[in-house]
């Protein structure tokens, strides 16, 4: 059996892999706005879980890989990830004590911020956005949060300790 520390890293890597696969799972063209930001939500969970071991370089690399995967300009997702990670690190002490639904509200704000930077980059790339559609992923991510934290809590409790 692996040591608990290694075990945890394995769970982290696995959860990001699952999130990356879900983030490119094919959806009908019109439904794509409703896809939650899986990678970002999982990243937020791990930042809240172990805020003192967050590596911004690794987050950047993760974001760059996601950019490559989704075929968007390099830096789009890393920018959002890094900004959101910084806000998380400033706020984790309060947010960890929130009830799950208040946490969901906070996730809505965080993903909304990441969506803003995403759409700045997309606007620079010649695909300007009209309307409030960019908040749909924030909404679905907030709804995903309870399920995601329940799943990851279960994983860490079962295999980590």
């Amino acid at each position, binding site marked *: 059996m692996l040591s608990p520390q290694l075990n945890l890293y394995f769970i982290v890597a696995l959860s990001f892999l699952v999130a*990356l*696969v879900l*983030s*490119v*799972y*094919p*959806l*009908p*063209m*019109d439904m*794509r*706005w409703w*896809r939650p930001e899986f990678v970002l939500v999982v990243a937020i969970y791990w930042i809240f879980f172990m805020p003192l071991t967050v590596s911004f370089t690794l987050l*950047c690399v993760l974001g760059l890989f996601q950019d*490559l*995967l*989704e*075929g*968007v*300009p*390099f*830096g*789009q997702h*890393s*920018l959002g990830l*890094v900004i959101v990670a910084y806000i998380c690190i400033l706020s984790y002490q309060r947010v960890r004590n929130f009830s799950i639904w208040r946490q969901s509200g906070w996730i809505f704000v965080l993903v909304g911020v990441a969506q803003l930077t995403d*759409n700045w*980059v*997309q606007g*620079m*790339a*010649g*695909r*300007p*956005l009209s309307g409030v*559609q960019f908040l749909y992923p924030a909404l679905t991510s907030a709804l995903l949060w309870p399920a995601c934290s329940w799943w990851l809590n279960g994983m860490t409790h079962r295999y980590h300790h």
Partner: protein
Amino acid sequence: MVVLVVVGLYTDRLEPLREKLAQAVTPFYQITDVPSRVNDWRKDTFVSHADLKLENEALKTELLIHQRKLQQLASLAAENVRLRQLLNASQMLQDTVLIAELIGVSPNPLSHKVIINRGSKDGAFKGQPVLDAFGLMGQVIEVGETSSTVLLISDPTHAIPVQVNRNGVRAIAEGTGDLNSLSLRHVSANTDIRAGDLLVSSGLGERFPTGYPVAEVLQVVRDPGKAFLTVIAQPMARLDRSRHLLLVFENRDRASVPGALSVTTVEAASSAVSSAASSVGGGR
């Protein structure tokens, strides 16, 4: 990070890097394609004899109809060649095509891109036109070894030179970000264009071959306050439904295609498909 974004957007220095790394992400699209493959397999395997028989008959009837059309096409094509010789015009050639399958859709909701299962190994190249059975779909913009990315004509950064099939009026059809509409750019107010007109690729710009159907005009708005007409057209290709696409090789490039065998085997299909799409003789 911001510097990276700016460099990536305004220069093409990061392009080689992206092309090299593209191979790393193909497995993700192959994994996410598994459910639809399983579904296809289920449909192929658990099907009743009666259903197969019915389908077979329907296909035979369809084939008969197409063959009748082809008979006419042969004489028409011959006549076309004779007339062109009379006019001293260059000869039109049939294009060859390679069938590709869609394996993924770009997750970015602002862009209209799809990922297909053909890459540089099959001879796909940047800028290659892509069709489905109903019309022009788009062009290849990124080529990996075994997969490539296709930019659809409805993407807001895409534009294609077209002409009205009825009278030859030329225009540029731009994507709008909406799958079901293209808009024509700078069409002056006295242009002869009306709802129902078929727009075909004009071949100007030397990227797309001539004569493939692109869109049908839905609506023409003449606003006296504006300098140009507002023309909305609906793409002929089924941009969000087609799973089997055709990569077009123009004949002058055929020698350089590594998978030439697979290309020539589908040559027969090419003529059938182009007649089904009612485009007579594409290419130059």
